[in-house]
């Protein structure tokens, strides 16, 4: 049966029509449903997709793009080499050198299925880092960069390389980095400051000039695949080359800095200084800072560690927290550039300024006589207040220059009163003592003065009286030396500065400082008088112990105590009083090339040496100048005949000579000698050739072969002895003497410190240097 047959058959027409209708209906239903499907599957569904794509790709494209790039872009920094810091003579004080960082890629180590324990054990062993630290870092398996140790040295990085190649490891890497080196260790540490691990300056000039020194870090931006490797076939990315940091040339002379620090450290030991010491050396004509030293000091290479013997001072602290606190404070103290930051009461050193204003105002001249009977009453409204001179009996009638070299308080009070409070403050202002000096430093301290309303009170002269001899106000050491420099350089207040020039990495000068005169405070004539009076202080007065044979040295002593302490202690309680022994010296006195201000904060009473600037600070400055003038500044000594007996001389070499020639040479050099043995040729000599030795020393010449004694001897205690007593005491032990400080020919000179402490065992024939002080030359402490 077929459709065709059906057509021709006699199927009832109604049935056919019904069937046809139903079929039509079905076909229509299929058609409608197909159209519906076509609409849904062909149009609606894709319209939804189009909207969704439009939303992602057009509306929010930027969001996804940035999210994608943040995952795909890898930025590596190209570190710029930090600029170097040089001293005035081009000697490197701070520099950055290449080192390497060791890091691991925990992800790679995991993916390559390497033995993390084995790697960690070896890294810990080679680099000296904690094993558990490495293991902890290795658990961050999504990371590709975990620093194991920064700035490893060459030796360690070689070992790491060998370890990697021997074991065919991957995932351990070395990347170049730079490390800051301070080749001179502690030298000028507070000036330079230090940098953190990221080579960012944290203190001192490193911080102040960080922007110049650090340069501009380069960036290498690249597209990477998901494993962090560079994307192939991609030109996308940016490269910015690093620009190295600028170099800074300082005015500091590292040779001067070295001598200053050396003698400062020795002074700390000699006088058992409790609270540290400060020293500034300046070129008074230009304002260039030649050296700044502070004690305690530290090594910027390891700035977190305590320098010197500070750690021993903490040894007694048992409590852990207390110890940490003390350690932290000690760190802060050693980093502090106190010379620029901490104001102090300058005491008698300030008398320079008082003197200068009196001379400039013509209230006194060299012929003026100042009467001192030991005390002076100053007006305190209806009452009077007494100011004592350090000499209880008074200095009697004294000329202007003797009033200064006597450091007479009464005379200075008279000078101050003679100019008046307003003029006094006018000069204080002119000398720049109200303002910060503006020296290039990370921070600079302020001075503290009486408010004008108090100071200018005509009914109350006590402030003016005390200020005239340097008490009841505070200035910073840098302010003090800057002002003092103006008094001796012709009267010009010079801007003190540390940075001579800054050059970029190509050598172009981008900043150059020249000596800057801020104003002329004194006339040249006044300055000339100042120089001569201050030279007298050293040659005749309280500054005698700073005398350097062969040079003309000027200066002023100071022994001050803090106003806070004055309020706390009984006036006569001298046992517990803390003093700042200070000395300001300059040389040569007729043409000052260098000025040094030294502060010894709280020397111990226990050394037995009478605490005063003249006794303690002056000899130290003298020793500094004795080294600096010939060695650093090339100024040769010019001895007078009178000096000759006082100086130390070089021991000539006479070994191998006939006894006659040897004797002649020694005689010519002012030595006497003793022949030991029967030979005709000198086989050995004591003291050894080329040592510096006191003139007039008796030399032992050994002629019967080399039979000089080889045994050790004990150094005797010499404190308080005269030169001759000390020489005899040393000679009894077979030791020789050399002196510094006050003239040995001066009968009043006494030994204050000795270079080799008493009780030490030394070789027979060694030389002991003693510091002589003229104990009469020191002002007495009364204020």
């Amino acid at each position, binding site marked *: 049966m077929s459709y065709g047959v059906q057509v021709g058959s006699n199927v009832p027409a109604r049935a056919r029509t019904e069937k046809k209708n139903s079929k039509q209906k079905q*076909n229509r239903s299929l058609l409608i449903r197909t159209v519906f499907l076509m609409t849904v599957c062909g149009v609606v569904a894709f319209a939804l997709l189009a909207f969704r794509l439009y939303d992602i790709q*057009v509306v929010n494209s930027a969001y996804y793009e940035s999210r994608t790039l943040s995952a795909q872009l890898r930025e590596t920094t190209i570190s710029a080499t930090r600029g170097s810091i040089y001293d005035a003579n081009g000697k490197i004080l701070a520099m950055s050198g290449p080192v390497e960082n060791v890091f691991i890629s925990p992800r790679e180590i995991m993916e390559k299925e390497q033995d993390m324990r084995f790697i960690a054990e070896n890294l810990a062993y080679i680099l000296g880092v904690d094993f558990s630290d490495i293991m902890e870092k290795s658990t961050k398996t999504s990371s590709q960069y975990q620093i194991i140790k920064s700035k490893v040295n060459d030796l360690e990085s070689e070992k790491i390389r060998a370890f990697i190649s021997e074991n065919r490891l991957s995932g351990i890497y070395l990347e170049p980095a730079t490390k800051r080196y301070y080749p001179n260790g502690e030298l000028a540490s507070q000036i330079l400051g230090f940098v953190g691990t990221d080579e960012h300056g944290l203190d001192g000039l490193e911080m102040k000039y960080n922007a110049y020194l650090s340069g501009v870090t380069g960036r290498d931006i690249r597209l990477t695949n998901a494993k962090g490797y560079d994307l*192939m076939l991609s030109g996308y990315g940016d490269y910015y080359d690093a620009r190295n940091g600028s170099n800074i040339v300082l005015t500091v002379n590292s040779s001067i800095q070295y001598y200053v620090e050396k003698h400062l450290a020795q002074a700390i030991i000699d006088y058992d200084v409790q609270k540290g010491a400060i020293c500034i050396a300046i070129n008074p004509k230009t304002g260039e800072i030649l050296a700044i030293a502070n004690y305690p000091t530290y090594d910027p290479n390891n700035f977190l560690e305590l320098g010197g013997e500070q750690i021993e001072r903490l040894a007694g602290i048992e409590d852990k927290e207390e110890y940490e606190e003390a350690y932290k404070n000690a760190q802060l103290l050693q980093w502090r550039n106190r010379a620029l930051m901490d104001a102090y009461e300058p005491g008698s050193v300030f008398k320079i300024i008082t003197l200068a204003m009196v001379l400039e105002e013509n209230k006194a001249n060299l012929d003026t006589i100042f009467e001192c009977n030991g005390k002076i009453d100053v007006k305190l409204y209806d009452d009077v207040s007494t100011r004592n001179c350090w000499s209880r009996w008074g200095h009697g009638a004294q000329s202007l220059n003797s009033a200064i070299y006597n450091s007479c308080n009464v005379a200075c009070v008279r000078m101050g009163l003679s100019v008046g409070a307003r003029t006094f403050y006018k000069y204080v202002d002119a000398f720049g003592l109200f303002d910060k000096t503006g020296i290039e430093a990370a921070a600079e301290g302020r001075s503290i003065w009486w408010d004008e309303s108090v100071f200018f009170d005509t009914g109350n002269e006590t402030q003016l009286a005390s200020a005239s001899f340097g008490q009841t106000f505070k200035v910073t050491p840098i302010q003090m030396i800057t002002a003092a420099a103006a008094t001796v350089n012709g009267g010009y207040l010079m801007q003190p500065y540390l940075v001579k020039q800054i050059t970029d990495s190509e050598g172009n000068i981008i900043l150059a400082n020249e000596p800057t005169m801020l104003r002329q405070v004194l006339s040249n004539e006044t300055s000339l008088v100042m120089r001569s009076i201050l030279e007298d202080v050293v040659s005749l007065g309280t500054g005698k112990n700073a005398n350097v044979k062969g040079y003309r040295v000027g200066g002023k002593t100071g022994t001050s105590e803090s106003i806070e302490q004055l309020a706390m202690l009984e006036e006569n309680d001298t046992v517990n009083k803390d003093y700042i022994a200070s000395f300001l010296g300059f040389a040569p006195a007729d043409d000052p090339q260098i000025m040094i201000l030294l502060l010894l904060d709280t020397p111990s009473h226990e050394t037995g040496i009478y605490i005063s600037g003249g006794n303690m600070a002056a000899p130290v400055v003298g020793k500094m100048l004795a080294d600096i003038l010939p060695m650093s500044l090339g100024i040769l000594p010019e001895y007078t005949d009178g000096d000759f007996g006082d100086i130390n001389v070089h021991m000539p070499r006479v070994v191998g000579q006939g006894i006659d020639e040897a004797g002649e040479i020694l005689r010519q050099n002012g030595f006497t000698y003793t022949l030991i043995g029967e030979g005709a040729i000198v086989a050995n000599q004591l003291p050894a050739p080329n040592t510096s030795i006191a003139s007039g020393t008796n030399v032992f010449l050994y002629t019967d072969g080399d039979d000089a004694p080889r045994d050790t001897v004990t150094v005797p205690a010499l404190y308080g002895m005269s030169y001759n007593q000390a020489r005899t005491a040393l000679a009894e032990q077979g030791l020789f003497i050399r002196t510094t400080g006050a003239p040995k020919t001066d009968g009043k000179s006494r030994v204050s410190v000795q270079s080799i402490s008493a009780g030490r065992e030394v070789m027979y024939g060694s030389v002991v240097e003693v510091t002589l002080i003229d104990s009469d030359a020191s002002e007495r402490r009364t204020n």
Partner: protein
Amino acid sequence: MNKRQAFSETNKPGTQELRLTDDHFPNWRERELSARHIKTAEKAPGVDKPMLVITLVILLIGVIMVLSASFARGSYTAGGPLRLFLRQAIFAVTGIILMLIVSKISTRTISRWSMQLLFVSIILLVLVLIIGIEANGAKRWIGIGGENGILTFQPSEIAKLALILSFAQMICKIGGNKMKTFKFGVVPFAIIIGIVVILLRFQSHMSAMIIVTFLAAIMMFAGGTRLRWFLMVVAVLVSMVSGLIYFQLRAAAPQLDAKDVTIETIVDNVDFSGFGYQGRRINAWLDPDGDPLGDGFQIRQSLNAIGSGGFLGQGLGQSRQKYLYLPEEHNDYIFSIVCEELGFVGAMLIIMLFILLIIRGYWLAMNANDKFGSLIVIGITSLLALQVFLNIAVVTNMLPATGISLPFFSYGGTALWLQLIQIGIILSVSKEIPAPAEDKTEDAGFAYDPEY
């Protein structure tokens, strides 16, 4: 002779000729007769050219995109950058040959083998559970030749085609009126769906289950099953899902007031992680940034790729996400790379091509010479549309992730073969459409409608 008789008669063995009822090929005999009468055979129009051309264009773009997408990963692995592309190209060329061969097969032959194909595919679905290649804890692939097979294929792919063909066959046999009954219009189909879905459930093959279910529903819908049955199923599903969300909300946020329930609160509070793997995918869909390195990783990378394509794209070959950021970049997520490289413009162009293909498919269905041909073209076209939609919806995070590949684009040889074979079937149906007479071009109706 009534319908029932005709139906029973066709089931008599050995009466191949008689099997063909008027429901199968209503116009066939008429046309044969008329041809006999007129003696001038209509010139065979051949396969549908637009269908063929669109397919080839899409295929060409697809293969190029496989090259672009697989290049990066290939470079990092042993096979080299061109390995996947070359393999895909070989499959494409052979697939085109297969397509052309299939297009030569007559619709009748296809119809004849459709129930057998269903039987075979069910056998394969069982077989895959036993001899299948295990990957990620599921056995979905059967390998031919060697341990892991030179050729591998998914029986589920074959099952989809078998379902289309067999359902079309069944619909034609059952006939229009009976399709409206529950007994004939729902039950037989439901049984077959049940068997297939359960077998797919053993493979944990969620995407195939979804597609098979939708496909079956579309076939039944086209075949004339009453709408009420669909509505009932939809109602049941909706109530199940809302019940699930309700209890989740009650548990997660008991203080929540009914009027405060919004999409946000649902997204914030509903957690499907208790539903295993699929549940975690739903969570990642709702909040891709919730677990950016875990479940949300893939969809985030996909969105990154699509979004960074922008309007005009990074340029062909310039995708950056393919450099190991986006997993499955040459496979299920190839469209993300397409979007990144070709931009919104390129993506829309490709979507337009798919729309053309699909609309052309439905158009061919409407013009098919017979109901069977019409139904299988509807089925294949719908399958294609479903796959394209679900794939793009997943990569754009409109829907939770399922493992649905993008036809003609995603890497995969045997799947591509099957897709091309399916197009071959459409072409086979299309070539039997008579060329419209000049004066009838505007009457684009069902060609087999007896009215014509």
